[in-house]
């Protein structure tokens, strides 16, 4: 690795960023061509400061992407990064002339739209006000003022007159909220959109809403709900309708991974593999389909191996990056639990062969899982065995019965005692008198406890 790159990634590491050393399996140009809108830059930039092999390429593409748009702030950000990572590249110097003219143009445009909007407002024509707000919102979004954009889009709401316009407002707000990473807001906007349109329009917009909802739930770590949302995406609608958020293959990956992390085998079979809608999407990413199929048929190590080989890809995904480790460990522990179900006793060596990882001994991992209550088993470190515990409903019942009887007795005694105290008028009653009554002198009762 070149010195400058090393320096750049040390910096990123210090800032707590994720760093991926392995090359991903995708081709950068092909990958980015799946997307439209501002997410292209976000994705490129994320790859630029996370992936070691793709760093320079991605940052250069990001700079080019930024220059095509109007957001000067993003341009500066990308160039700053490239200046550290690869100072010798021609793109690593600021294009001052472009910056100045662009900033000036942006200012002029903002002012122009604001004056126009003012004019419309004076004329009290609803449609014009709506369009004025929309134009302003779009402009502010494109120059990176997301707060302003959200505000402008929200102002469109009172002047909406057709279902189409209503949908547009909602989509704008959802998109901006996703960019701002405000997951709660995304859900709120999506739920406002649901169920109010005509059937046809609803069908066209359904994938957009489901994808947005899924991303929001993923952001809030509600994996199961997110998975269900992704699995419900209507595959007959072209991916271009939601490619400003994610591509169809992304949807398949999110849906598949999250389902793996949160569902059991039967559920996976019915709602993932047998789901004809989702199956079409899964065709974009055959490895996920294979992983799910392996899991369902009980070949857990194969499933994990497939997922592990794609880990770098998912670490470079804009929405998955933060959750990959968590999702993977969930899948892993699920695999281990499922693996142990049919056995009463498994040797640690077999487990290590199936799930072994170089960085952590399987024994420790199992111990952690047992401790957290995820796994019902015991480890025998001397004979290197894992024995699963079968729940004994009889013993449980007996315990519960005895426990219940004991509780009953205690409660009965307690209640009798309270009745006695209340009848004798001995309850605590304090208020102002507490100083005298409630707090007797220290010497009266405070005695050092002695241990025999």
């Amino acid at each position, binding site marked *: 690795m070149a010195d400058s790159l090393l320096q750049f990634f040390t910096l990123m590491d210090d800032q707590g960023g994720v760093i991926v050393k392995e090359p991903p399996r995708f081709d950068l140009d092909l990958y980015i061509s799946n997307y439209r809108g501002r997410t292209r830059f976000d994705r490129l930039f994320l790859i630029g400061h996370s992936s070691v092999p793709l760093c320079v390429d991605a940052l250069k593409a990001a700079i080019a992407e930024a220059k095509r748009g109007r957001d000067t702030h993003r341009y500066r950000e990308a160039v700053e990064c490239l200046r550290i990572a690869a100072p010798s590249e021609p793109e690593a110097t600021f294009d001052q002339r472009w910056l100045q003219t662009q900033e000036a143009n942006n200012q002029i445009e903002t002012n122009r739209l604001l004056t126009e909007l003012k004019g419309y407002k004076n004329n009290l024509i609803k449609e014009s006000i709506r369009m004025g707000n929309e134009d302003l919102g779009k402009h502010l979004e494109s120059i990176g003022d997301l707060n302003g954009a959200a505000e402008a889009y929200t102002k469109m709401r009172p002047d909406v007159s057709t279902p189409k316009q209503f949908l547009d407002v909602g989509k704008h707000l959802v998109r901006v909220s996703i960019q701002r990473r405000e997951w709660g807001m995304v859900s709120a906007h999506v739920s406002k959109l649901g169920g109010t349109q005509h059937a046809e329009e609803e069908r066209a917009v359904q994938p957009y809403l489901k994808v947005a909802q899924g991303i929001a739930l993923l952001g809030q770590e509600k994996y199961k709900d997110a998975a269900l949302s992704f699995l419900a995406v209507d595959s007959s609608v072209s991916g271009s309708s939601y490619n400003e958020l994610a591509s169809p293959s992304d949807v398949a990956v999110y849906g598949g991974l999250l389902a793996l992390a949160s569902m059991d085998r039967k559920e996976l079979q019915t709602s993932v593999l047998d789901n004809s809608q989702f199956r079409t999407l899964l065709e974009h990413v055959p490895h996920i389909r294979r992983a799910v199929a392996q899991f369902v048929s009980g070949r857990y190590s194969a499933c994990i191996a497939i997922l592990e080989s794609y880990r770098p890809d998912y670490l470079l995904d804009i929405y998955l990056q933060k959750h990959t480790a968590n999702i993977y460990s969930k899948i892993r522990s699920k695999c281990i639990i499922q693996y142990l179900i049919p056995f009463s006793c498994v040797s640690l060596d077999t487990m290590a062969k199936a799930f072994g990882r170089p960085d952590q001994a399987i024994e420790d991992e199992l111990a952690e899982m047992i401790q957290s209550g995820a796994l019902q088993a015991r480890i025998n470190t001397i004979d290197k065995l894992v024995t699963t515990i079968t729940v004994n409903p009889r013993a449980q019942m007996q315990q519960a019965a005895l426990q219940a009887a004991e509780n009953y007795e205690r409660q009965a005694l307690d209640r009798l005692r309270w009745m006695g105290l209340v009848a004798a008028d001995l309850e605590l009653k304090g208020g102002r008198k507490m100083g005298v009554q409630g707090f007797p002198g220290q010497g009266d009762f405070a*005695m050092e*406890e002695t*241990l025999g």
Partner: protein
Amino acid sequence: MDQAVAVLLNFPPPGGFADDAQYHSAAQSHVLEVEKLTAKADFNKSYAAQLLDHVNPALNSISYLSLLLAVRGANSLPQADLLAKFSVFLCTFDARQIRYRSSAFSVVLDLLASGSLFPASVAVDLLTTALLRLDPTGSVLTPHHVALVKLAYTTDAVEPALPLLEKDIIFYPGVKGLLETRPLSDPDLPPAAYMNREPGVQKSLSHSDILEYDLLRALCFIQRRAWRQAFDALERVLTYPARDSHSCSKIMVEAHNKWILVGLLLNGKVPTMPATMAAGAQKSLAALGKPYQSIGKAFEENTAESLKAEYESLGAQFFSQENNLNLMRLVMQHYQRWQILNLRQVYTKISLEQIRARTQSAETAAPLATEAEIEKLVQEMIDEGMLSGVIERPDGGLAHLIFVSPNEELSEAEFAQKMMRTAQRLKELEPLVKAASERLGTSRDYIKYLAGQQKKEKDGWRDYDASFVNTVEDEDLMTGVVAGY
């Protein structure tokens, strides 16, 4: 003198009584006669001491008690003899007769508790025996109980008092407006009806006395390292009822702090606050018990560092001021034991070396230095019955600990036996429940409340009917609101 003997032995007559009512009236007149006798000026001086030998303490308890007090008042017997008579009397008296002489008996018990007659350990033993003879259920609190526990704890004579301390107190003195129709001699009379009858006892205990009683009981159990009982006793302090929503006693605060520490020793985790706590106590304790709650939280963590840090940040000084230093030290010692104990949730067999690496001593926040130390600790735990397991050292293999899991499933017979035992215990509660309900039934406040409640219920129904009719009248009758009626 012969006349005196005749009076003293007059009760009970050799033939016994036909029924309780006869016994009652005979006992009452006997008490009066004996009192008259002992009030005579020449009685004490001349022959009271000799009379003691003629009267059987187990049979003629009323007479014997009066004689004892008279003799003690006149100082006409050597101290050693007097004490011997006292102890024989306290161990053998007839509880039914003593019901009629409760104030005189109370004087004897006060003498015992004051510690002036007997050395403390004997006094505690005699008091316990006497109180339990009088009230075998041990369910009624008397001022003597409070005095006893203080005496026992301060003089380090806990053991003889244990049979009494282990009983659950349910009835307290000071209930007003009770009406007892049965004669005192009725053998089925609940203890609550004949205990605490001496004048003045009604007002003699305050709530702080009762809180203190339970706290001292807990301290006694802590001294005996009976964590379960100590924990229960402390919980009684915590769940003490309050009339308003802001009262909290300082004794409760003290009990709460000890309760957390005892809970850690008993269960290895922070106990959850009982749901039945008074609101004021709940609030105050949550605020005042902060240092102990953070100790508890640190205790539950997987590494000893934060426990050590918490302890050191508060300092031994703090705990000794709070009178909890010894308990706290024990908690620190027990941290590693609980860590080891918790390993049984994960392992069936584990090498000592692994135990050493995985657990830390809270005193140093580091694993023990050698395997031998761990072995010593584990062996101690096994010996004390805290851990069920064995240490094995196979030839050429690693020394390891085998956790023996108790056989959870009980056989049908065992289970039935256990359930029977519980049912039996519940049945034993029945007289207590009956007594409590009788007391409640005769209390004026309750009857007032009940009458109010019934009235309210009646009014409530009427109101409901009226309001329903009104709403229906206001509504459009065609909408089908009344369709169901």
